[in-house]
């Protein structure tokens, strides 16, 4: 686990970051947390529109669940009030539980969908819930493909240090060297 995290840090430093795209908030329904599902043109060649929209819509539904006003949230609020809000010292709120679910979902999406395409999603909570930051990494695998690498292919030889790899290839190379 530590090595993978270290690898991801390394790739962030060494893999060249081409640009970042920011998905802004959608305030048309008020102050509830929702992100715009409009497909940014920079991602046109990188990821399918449908996958992207699905990710954003799932995130929106998670946030709606966190901010849902209903019986359970009222109960939590009344209980907290009755204990003069000391109960928050021991137990975590419903919102925090959903945020943890969201960060697990984002990790999973990064692993399965975004990293193989040379993209990385940043959890909105780290950006003050203002934007979904998508980092686009330069896509120059040693295998020579210059267009979007939707499927990771293993390198045939060790890449020279001057060649920049896409994130998934680098991870795979490091994994393979570890296995050996």
């Amino acid at each position: 686990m530590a090595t993978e995290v270290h690898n991801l840090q390394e790739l962030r430093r060494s893999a060249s970051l081409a640009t970042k795209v920011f998905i802004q908030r959608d305030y048309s329904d008020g102050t509830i947390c929702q992100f715009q599902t409009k497909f940014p043109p920079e991602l046109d060649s990188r990821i399918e529109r449908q996958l992207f929209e699905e990710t954003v819509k799932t995130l929106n539904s998670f946030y709606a669940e966190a901010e849902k006003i209903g019986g359970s949230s009222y109960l939590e609020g009344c209980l907290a009030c009755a204990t003069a809000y000391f109960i928050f010292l021991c137990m975590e709120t419903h919102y925090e539980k959903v945020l943890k679910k969201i960060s697990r979902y984002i990790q999973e999406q990064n692993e399965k969908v975004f990293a193989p395409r040379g993209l990385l999603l940043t959890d909105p909570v780290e950006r003050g819930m203002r934007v979904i930051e998508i980092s686009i990494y330069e896509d120059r695998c040693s295998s020579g493909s210059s267009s979007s690498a939707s499927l990771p292919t293993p390198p045939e030889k060790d890449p020279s240090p001057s060649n920049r790899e896409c994130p998934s290839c680098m991870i795979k190379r490091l994994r393979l060297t570890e296995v050996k």
Partner: protein
Amino acid sequence: MPPGGGGPMKDCEYSQISTHSSSPMESPHKKKKIAARRKWEVFPGRNKFFCNGRIMMARQTGVFYLTLVLILVTSGLFFAFDCPYLAVKITPAIPVVGGILFFFVMGTLLRTSFSDPGVLPRATPDEAADLERQIDIANGTSSGGYRPPPRTKEVIINGQTVKLKYCFTCKIFRPPRASHCSLCDNCVERFDHHCPWVGNCVGKRNYRFFYMFILSLSFLTVFIFAFVITHVILRSQQAGFLNALKDSPASVLEAVVCFFSVWSIVGLSGFHTYLISSNQTTNEDIKGSWSNKRGKENYNPYSYGNIFTNCCVALCGPISPSLIDRRGYIQPDTPQPAAPSNGMATYGATQSQSDMGLHTSPWSGRHGPPSGANLSKEVFLEATQCGPSAVCRPESPTTEAMTNRLRHRYVFRKEAVTLQDLGVESMRRPGAGSQECPLPVSLGTR
């Protein structure tokens, strides 16, 4: 089938480099000498932090200590001098109820004062640059120019047009109902007002605690006042009025304090009950944003339609967690928000010396850019004190516009000379190499 496709990829966890991690993620060989710093230590706003980032307050806390002293002394005197007599003469339930009220008041006061009101973290340099680019595209001007027009975005919320303003300090478009507190130098979500009596802003995350505080304090004040009067009356029946006062001099002090407080606190509770039931903030009410006087079509788009739902949502709705992550460790490779320029720092230093909003010298009489010391006096024109008969007032529109203009000037003086300053070396602007934003000569350099 690619050999690396199945097994190793499954084990490889792309764990997000979390800035929420409780342990510093540093390489073990280097950086042992540098102690990991927590984010509150480099927080750009004008706040004070205690207990290693657990407690967060505004910079000016003098009035908060006064509030504490008043409540503690009055309640202490009540329990020490009046309760023994009343518990025996009437019922022992009096000190019990008084005790419960007192603990509730203290609990909610400390919660209001010490918690994050809903501060929005400032934009990272990448985010700020992206927004600037989009604004330039929208305005059709090149970003080399200085003093661009005020930046607003319009959104339609439930049929009402709401203007989102760009905050020059935090470099974000403020969400609806958010406002920038000039005293704390932060954008706060659902900003209600800055309350010096609790030493903190009142915003989305601590509004319910604030309301519970003033409500329970009203009950406590009325309770103490009523029973102090009862105590004096009962004693006067036995020994005469003057002797009664001599026997319990503390009662006089308590009665005086309670008498003067009850009007303002009960009044404030009533006002906030009205605000909660109509789902408005003090800010919106003062500006008359949703009042019928602006037009027949003007209504509050955030209201849920009925009083009961509005109250329930305000008091028992979900609480969002703090977005500023005060106790997280600073990661070496994560982007930090653009630090305030030195102009801002002097802005803050002199503010702490100035009285709270008693300077009303007009800006229009001044020529040329002001020096740092005068700047703080000019800009903080508002009295945001919760006086006995006044309501805590937020920044008025005119000073906000002025403030924004001044801040913008400072931004262009100290920051963003080149793209490098924004930390976006790798990003290129379309159709240009890396080019410098020319500093306007008239503003001079510092």
